[in-house]
């Protein structure tokens, strides 16, 4: 099918985009990479009357080494994240998750900002930014604000970014020595989205587990940090028995998704297995 008639504006700046969003209200929608929005428009499930394209705003595409942190522009593509030397060296979890998204065509066009704001329950980038404790810079009519990853994902397909705001930047701390990260994903074979995706970050301190982050996507209506797993493993030697016990409850208390591709029971079970394997891989990379 083809979309319902719509007006298209290529915004030249974030300010112009915000002005257009303010002017058209609920009738306008921002266009980033388009791989989520355009198919919905072609099916006429989404019918914005004004499409505000962020694609020509060069100031939103960048990867910057800023000392202790890396700053990534909202319109940075998965391809850039996966291939950038800075990110592969200093925030490898972002690169690994970006490389796992969809396929080559999607990675060439899709953006980290678009993914995070769309807040798909199976978003790969969401798991990565959660595990990295990223901070999101959001710009709106009342100015600039910062949203930590932990508060960014509000519900299914609902992020903390309001319809009249733009996610301009994602900031992550550079990875430390003696730390490793990994992203492991069981893809749904048709869509490529994660049935289960687990991003982990492990820092070793004196041979034991120091800082640890476990973020799960695909399992719940929104991606989440497995705080109980982290608490059980912090300070431990990450031996096989402790690891198995801790990871078994990764989806404890979570209302797991269930659809024709995977039942809630299966997702929870695979989540436990993938959490364990992801931590093992992250730890082995922490040398």
């Amino acid at each position, binding site marked *: 099918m083809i979309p319902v008639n719509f007006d298209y504006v290529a915004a030249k700046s974030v300010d112009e985009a915000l002005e257009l969003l303010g002017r058209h209200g609920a009738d306008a929608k921002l266009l980033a990479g388009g791989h989520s929005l355009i*198919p919905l428009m072609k099916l006429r499930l989404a019918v914005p009357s004004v499409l505000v394209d962020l694609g020509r705003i060069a100031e939103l595409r960048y990867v910057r080494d800023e000392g202790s942190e890396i700053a990534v522009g909202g319109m940075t593509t998965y391809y850039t994240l996966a291939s950038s030397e800075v990110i592969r060296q200093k925030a490898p979890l972002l690169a690994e998750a970006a490389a796992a998204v969809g*396929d080559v065509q999607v990675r060439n066009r899709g953006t980290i900002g678009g993914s995070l704001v769309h807040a798909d329950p199976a978003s790969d980038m969401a798991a990565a930014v959660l595990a990295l404790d990223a901070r999101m810079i959001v710009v709106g009519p009342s100015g600039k604000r910062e949203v930590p990853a932990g508060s960014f994902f509000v519900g299914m397909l609902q992020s903390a970014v309001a319809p009249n705001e733009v996610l301009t930047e994602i900031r992550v701390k550079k990875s430390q020595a003696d730390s490793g990260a990994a992203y492991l994903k*069981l893809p*749904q*074979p*048709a*869509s490529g989205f994660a049935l289960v995706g687990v991003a982990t970050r492990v820092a070793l301190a004196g041979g034991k587990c120091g800082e640890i982050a476990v973020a799960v996507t695909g399992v719940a209506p929104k991606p989440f940090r497995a705080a109980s797993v982290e608490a059980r493993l912090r300070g431990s030697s990450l031996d096989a028995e402790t690891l198995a016990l801790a990871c078994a409850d990764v989806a404890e208390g979570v209302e797991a998704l269930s659809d*024709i*591709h*995977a*039942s809630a029971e*299966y997702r929870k*079970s*695979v989540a436990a*297995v*993938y959490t364990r394997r992801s931590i093992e891989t992250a730890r082995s990379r922490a040398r």
Partner: protein
Amino acid sequence: MRISPTGKVTILTGVSPHGQGQETSFTQIACHRLGVKPDDVVVTHGDTSVVQYGIGTFGSRATAVGGTAVWMCIDAIQEKAKKFAAMMLKARGPEQIAIDGAIYRVKGKAKLSTTFQAIALAAYTAKTLPKGETPGLEATHFFEPTNFTFPFGTHVAVVEVDGETGEIQWRRYIAIDDCGKVINPLLVDGQVHGGIAQGLGQALWEEVVYDENGQLVTGSLMDYAVPKAGFLPRFETDRTETPTTVNPMGIKGVGEAGTIGSTPAIVNAVVDALAPFGVKHIDMPLRPEKLWRIIHAGRAGRATA
């Protein structure tokens, strides 16, 4: 088959290739017999204003049946060409003419020869005609085989099933197929590869799902899983060539070889892997959750046994 005054070849065929490559293989047949270059051959199909009749391409039959019709058409073309050659070379009769690709010469007289292209021109300009012959150089042939051909083969799938998640890991995939005489090895390989991909797709991923109200719920390729290249194992393929006696070229078909071999190979491999749990059959597609449930039920059963 219609030869033009300059000796170019047009093949009008009732087969309707949609990727099987008869445009190439039929051209090869013509080049092999008539000694013409591939650029001098055109294969036309599917145009009902030009091709009298055709029932399509299926059942591994297009080359075995349609290709044989081309071969036999060439027999008729060459018979007429020999008559013209005998006339042009002042031989006693067409039985004196030997064909060597595009060269038509009088047997025993190496210097007395003409070309297919010269014969074609002579046939159309028709200044003189051999006794009883009409101008032009074309022939129509319908071929009805006396029997099926019997391509055969063996496919082996070696897999490992992840006991914790039910995911399938490839170890090897081997396919040895026999389609008789091979006209174009690339086309045969392509057919086998495509067939294996399709069969594995059916066995492992593709599924149309309706809910209990008859509502289709796999309504797009986001939910209906078509196999992608990265899903597939490395194919190790090889061939034997056992010609059929049903047609002069000894060719069989290969269009179905990949699908017929692959589906049972992979399902049987997984059933074999899960045999310790008492599994003798699993409905396709072999999705990871399905295998995971079998393994877990099997483990629970064994634990209490």
